[in-house]
């Protein structure tokens, strides 16, 4: 076999090692525990959770919104970077797309585990009312999941073909999934065309998904939910948490699989610039949302407002402001701290902060009823915690399994970049220059 400069990218596939098996075993253990807790909940009823009257939604809905939010990392970022021909995207897009596909599958499960009668789930098709925001969700999440898995798969085909030709095992898997891709001119053309269509299509779908999720809340009359800004607010939060999750994944795999040569400081710098912009945007939206509520001073609205600002949820609320705004802005606007460890801290902070944001949106509005019932209390039970941990475990397992069979960095796009992008970019740059023939004056 001839020398391949990208041989390290096949490392996890061709020599997985013992640590792979230990990780998978550990994760499966965690997931089975969560599964056991879910079966228990299925048998005994939702009483095993901490939900009650009036806090009828808890961790499951919070995590649903949170996980679907993370999914925006991916496809959206990768589509926008591809579309804008950002050359530095090449080692990033694959991981971003994988996040989307895995997290969407996990997030999509959450409304189902939240159901009192999961056995009747098919009623959604049998008797579904398209007027209900929940049905909008089902529709747009299904569309997004389809689009994003196809969008993950299509650019993966040339890599699968490379693996097939290298004789990676199991051969039948690569043979089957590569669809006879040989890298001919026509195949490449079709591939590019498909990618172009997909990336244009995926952007509006992604935006619709989180908008529609916000509609679940904003379409009701409840104080703290009934807000016109919720659609874009949720989308911004989703992209924000998505980039943070992407950075965490990138830093982790860079360390584990020694991808330092591919994921360089510059990638982290660029992505964290984007993260900083999103932190500011998030603050802008949060500020507008709460100022409008406060200024109008509607009594029901104020009950929820003060519950968050000074009441029971104040530690969580201010924790969210710290994690989502103060911490990342301090770290990312300072050259000294804007290094990989700093970016990792900021990203973890944002992930926690965005989860808190979802909690702060869901619970306080339910706990503070319009009529003077006693304020609701919500303490998540062991079941809810274990299902949360199980969901995170599923995310990790999904990633570990993907990395075992497919390259986490798009090999063919790296090769293509090495071969053609310098020429292409310089040609493009030339085309930006003022046209000599038109500037010449007589």
């Amino acid at each position, binding site marked *: 076999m001839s020398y391949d400069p990208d041989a390290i990218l096949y490392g996890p596939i061709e020599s997985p090692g013992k640590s792979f098996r230990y990780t998978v075993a550990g994760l499966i253990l965690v997931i089975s525990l969560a599964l056991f807790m879910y079966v228990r909940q299925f048998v005994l009823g939702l009483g095993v959770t901490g939900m009650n009257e*009036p806090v009828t939604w808890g961790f499951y809905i919070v995590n649903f919104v949170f996980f679907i939010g993370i999914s925006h990392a991916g496809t959206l970022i990768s589509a926008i970077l591809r579309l804008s021909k950002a050359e530095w995207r090449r080692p990033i897009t694959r991981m971003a797309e994988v996040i989307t596909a895995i997290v969407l599958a996990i997030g999509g499960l959450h409304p189902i585990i939240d159901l009192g009668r999961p056995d009747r789930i098919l009623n959604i098709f049998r008797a579904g009312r398209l007027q209900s925001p929940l049905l909008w969700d089902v529709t747009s999440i299904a569309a997004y999941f389809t689009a994003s898995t196809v969008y993950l798969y299509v650019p993966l085909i040339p890599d699968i073909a490379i693996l097939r030709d290298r004789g990676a095992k199991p051969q039948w898997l690569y043979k089957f999934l590569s669809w006879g891709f040989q890298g001919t001119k026509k195949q490449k053309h079709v591939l590019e065309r498909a990618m172009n269509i997909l990336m244009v299509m995926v952007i509006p779908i992604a935006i619709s998904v989180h908008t529609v999720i916000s509609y679940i809340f904003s379409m*009701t009359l409840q104080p703290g939910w009934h807000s016109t800004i919720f659609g874009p607010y949720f989308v911004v939060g989703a992209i924000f948490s998505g980039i943070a999750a992407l950075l965490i994944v990138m830093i982790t795999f860079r360390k584990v699989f020694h991808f330092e040569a591919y994921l360089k400081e510059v990638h982290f710098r660029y992505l964290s610039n984007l993260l900083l912009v999103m932190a500011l945007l998030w603050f802008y939206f949060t500020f507008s949302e709460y100022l409008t509520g406060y200024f109008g001073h509607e009594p029901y609205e104020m009950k929820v407002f003060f519950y968050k600002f000074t009441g029971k949820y104040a530690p969580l609320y201010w924790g969210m402001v710290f994690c989502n705004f103060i911490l990342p802005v301090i770290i990312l606007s300072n050259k000294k701290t804007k290094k990989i460890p700093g970016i990792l801290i900021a990203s973890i902070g944002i992930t926690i902060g965005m989860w808190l944001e979802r909690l702060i949106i869901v619970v306080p509005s339910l706990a503070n009823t319009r009529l003077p019932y006693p304020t*609701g209390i919500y303490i998540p039970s062991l079941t809810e915690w274990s299902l949360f941990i199980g969901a995170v475990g599923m995310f990790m397992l999904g990633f570990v399994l993907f990395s075992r069979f497919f390259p986490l960095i798009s090999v063919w796009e790296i090769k293509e970049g090495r071969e053609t992008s310098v020429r292409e970019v310089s040609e493009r740059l030339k085309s930006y220059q003022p046209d000599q023939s038109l500037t010449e004056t007589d």
Partner: protein
Amino acid sequence: MPRWGMVIDLNTCTGCGACIAACKNENNVAYSSPEEAENGRALSWINLLPRYEGEFPNIHIQYYPMLCMQCDNPPCIKVCPVRATYKADNGIVAQIYPRCIGCRYCMAACPYTVKYFNWYEPKWEPEMIKSFNPDVSLRPKGVVEKCTFCHHRLIEAREEAMVEGIEFQEEQFVPACVETCPARAMHFGDLDDPNSMVSKLANSSRAVRFLEDLGTEPKVYYLSASEKLI
């Protein structure tokens, strides 16, 4: 088609709680232990919401019997993904227990917090099981339930009238809570019938409804000396 509604006179209501007991018996509402009730898991289609004013000993207590407001513009039915809750032609907001998937979206959307969820398999004390009302179906775990204005009594009254060959009279249909109220603080009938007691009371200057500015058009009216409830 009559438009069924209720009027509760707060100045007559003594807060005795007989309506709660009557409702639980009539509708086979599951029993919940004090611990579960403490955790917000109690099922009770009608409840007393207490309101305390002033400091002891000059304290004024007002009880508000709270039940499904049977809104003419119900926020709960709009959000249901499977049409397990809907407004019938006679204005009663109904719940289809065998269809409900238990997403609890209607509970989150209800501004009055009067819908209840079966967090566990419902249970009753042995004596209660013996006295089940055969006209009301038992709800399984994992579905939402709420006050139906005892609409099974409406069906029954209609059938009775049909069997006897007389025309159905609106007085024949009375929900259990109204029938029980020892203080006669609760009135029930057709809001569209200008001669009925309820429509007269509902149009009186003392009649108010909860959260009227939301535009939900509740069909449960309260008679109160003050202009605003709560």
